[in-house]
C-alpha cells in the first residue's frame, strides 16, 4: 500500500436508522478521505452523526448508501485494525484498573507474554496518570479516571488507527491538556492515524491536521479546514498564538450556525 493512497475513504456514505417504523437520517451521503498517519478531528453539534462516522469506520454499522473503504478495501465486517474508544463507559466493572488496561494483551491474537504484558500495562497506567490505582475497581474511580482507563486500554495494543469519541469530555481542564499532550506524543511516535470526535473546537485545532465541521442533523460536511500550525505543538501554549485565534474564529463561525440550527430541533 503506497503512503499516498488514503487510509480511510468515505464515498457517498449515508446512514439511516429504522426504529419501529420510524426512519431517521443520521448522516447524509458524505465523502472524504483520511490520509495515512493523519489526525482528523470531527466537530459538529450534538446528534449530527459524528459518532455514526466512527461506527462506520469500525464496521459496527454498515452504510445505508455509499461505501466506506479502509486501506482501499470495502469495510464489510468489524474492522479489527482500529482501536475504538467509544463515548460510552465500557470499562469492565469486574476488573481492576490494571486488568482492564491489559485485556487486549491477554487475547490470543496479540501473542504477548505475561511478563511483557505486565510491563506494558505498568507503562500505560503511568502514562495516563493512574499510578497507585492499579488495584482499584472501576466503581472506586471517578468518571475521569475511568475514561483514562479506557484510553490506556485502547492505546496499549497500538492499533494502527485510533477512533476516539469525545474521550476527554469528563476530564477537568488541566488534566485534559495533559492528556492531549500525551495523546499527541503517542500518536505521532507510533505513527497512528486518528479520527477524533469532539465538540470542543480548541481541542480539535490543538491536535488535528484537518478539522471537519459537520452540519446539524442529518449531518453532512459543512467545511474541511487544514490546520497548518507547526508540529510538534505545545498543547499548553498553542491556544494563545495568533494563528490559533484566527482558526478558532473561522471555525466557530462555521460551527455556530449549525449549533443554532441543531438546537431548533
Amino acid at each position, binding site marked *: 500500500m503506497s503512503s499516498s493512497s488514503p487510509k480511510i475513504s468515505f464515498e457517498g456514505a449515508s446512514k439511516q436508522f429504522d426504529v419501529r417504523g420510524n426512519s431517521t437520517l443520521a448522516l447524509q451521503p458524505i465523502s472524504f478521505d483520511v490520509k495515512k498517519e493523519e489526525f482528523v478531528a470531527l466537530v459538529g453539534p450534538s446528534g449530527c452523526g459524528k459518532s455514526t462516522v466512527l461506527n462506520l469506520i469500525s464496521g459496527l454499522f454498515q452504510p445505508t448508501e455509499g461505501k466506506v473503504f479502509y486501506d482501499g478495501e470495502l469495510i464489510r465486517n468489524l474492522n479489527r485494525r482500529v482501536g475504538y474508544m467509544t463515548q460510552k463507559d465500557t470499562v469492565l466493572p469486574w476488573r481492576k484498573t490494571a486488568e482492564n488496561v491489559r485485556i487486549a494483551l*491477554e487475547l490470543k491474537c496479540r501473542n504477548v507474554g505475561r511478563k511483557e504484558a505486565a510491563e506494558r500495562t505498568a507503562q500505560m497506567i503511568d502514562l495516563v496518570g493512574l499510578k497507585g490505582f492499579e488495584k482499584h475497581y472501576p466503581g472506586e474511580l471517578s468518571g475521569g479516571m475511568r475514561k483514562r482507563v479506557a484510553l490506556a486500554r485502547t492505546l496499549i495494543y497500538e492499533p494502527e488507527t485510533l477512533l476516539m469519541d469525545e474521550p476527554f469530555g469528563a476530564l477537568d481542564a488541566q488534566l485534559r491538556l495533559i492528556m492531549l499532550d500525551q495523546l499527541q506524543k503517542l500518536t505521532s511516535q507510533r505513527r497512528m492515524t486518528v479520527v477524533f470526535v469532539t465538540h470542543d473546537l480548541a481541542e480539535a485545532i490543538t491536535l488535528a491536521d484537518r478539522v471537519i465541521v459537520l452540519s446539524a442533523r442529518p449531518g453532512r460536511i459543512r467545511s474541511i479546514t487544514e490546520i497548518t500550525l507547526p508540529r510538534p505543538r505545545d498543547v499548553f501554549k498553542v491556544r494563545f498564538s495568533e494563528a490559533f485565534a484566527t482558526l478558532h474564529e473561522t471555525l466557530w463561525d462555521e460551527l455556530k450556525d449549525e449549533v443554532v440550527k441543531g438546537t431548533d430541533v
Partner: protein
Amino acid sequence: MAHSSLGIILFRIIVLTLAIAAWQFAPFGRGMELWVSRPFLILARLWEWVDDGSLWPHLFATGSEMIIGYLLGCASAIWLGLVLGMLPKLNRVLAPFLAAFYAMPKIALAPLFVIFFGIGLESKVALVWITVFFLVFNNTLDGVRDVDRDLIQVLRIMGARRSEIVRKILLPSAAPWIFTGMRIAVRYAFTSALLAELMAANRGLGFLIEYHSGSFDTTGAYAAILVIVILSVGITEILSRIENSAGRGR
C-alpha cells in the same frame, strides 16, 4: 444469628428444653406414643445407627445423588445458557418448550426415571439434575441477556475470539446471576434427592423414612428426619458463609 444477644440465646435454650421435656414426659397413651415417639428413643436410635455404621451408606447415597446431580445440572445449565445467550435466534425457537418444561413440577417425571434408570443412584441423579438444570439455566440466560452488548463489541474490535468473549465478558458478567441460581438450586437438589428416594429406592435418607414408616417404626422415621434437619442446617450455614465472603469480593 450472629447478632443475637445472650438473653435471646438463653431464651431459645429454655424453649427447646421445655419442648423436648414436654415431648419426652407428656403422658401419651400407648397408641399415641406409637405416633410421636420420644426424643430419647429417637436419639438412642440415631446413636445406634452411628455406632453400628448402618447410617453411613444411606448418608453416602443421598449425598452422592445430590452432589452428582447438582454438578451435572449446573454444568449443563451454564453451558446451554451461554450457548443460547449467544444465539438469540435458536433461543427464540426453543424458548416456549423450555418454559413449558420449567413450569412443570419435575417430580412428575420421577416414576418415569425409575422405569428408565432403575431404583438405584441413576434415577435420583436424573431428577436432581433436571431440577437443578432449569433453575440454573434460567438464571444463566437472564444473566447473559443482561450483558452489556457494547462490552462485547469492544472486545470483538480488539480481535477477541468467541471463546475469549465467553470467558472474559459473558461469564464474569453473568456470574452474579449464575451464582444466585446455583445457591437456590442447592436446596432443591436436596429435596429432589429425598423425593426420588421416597418414591422408590433401596438406600438413602428418603428410603430410611419410607422404610421405617412402612413398618410403623416412627422412632426410626424421626431419627432419619433428624439427620435431614441437621444436614439442612449445615447446608444453609455453608451457603450463607459463601454468600458473605462473595459479597465482600465486590
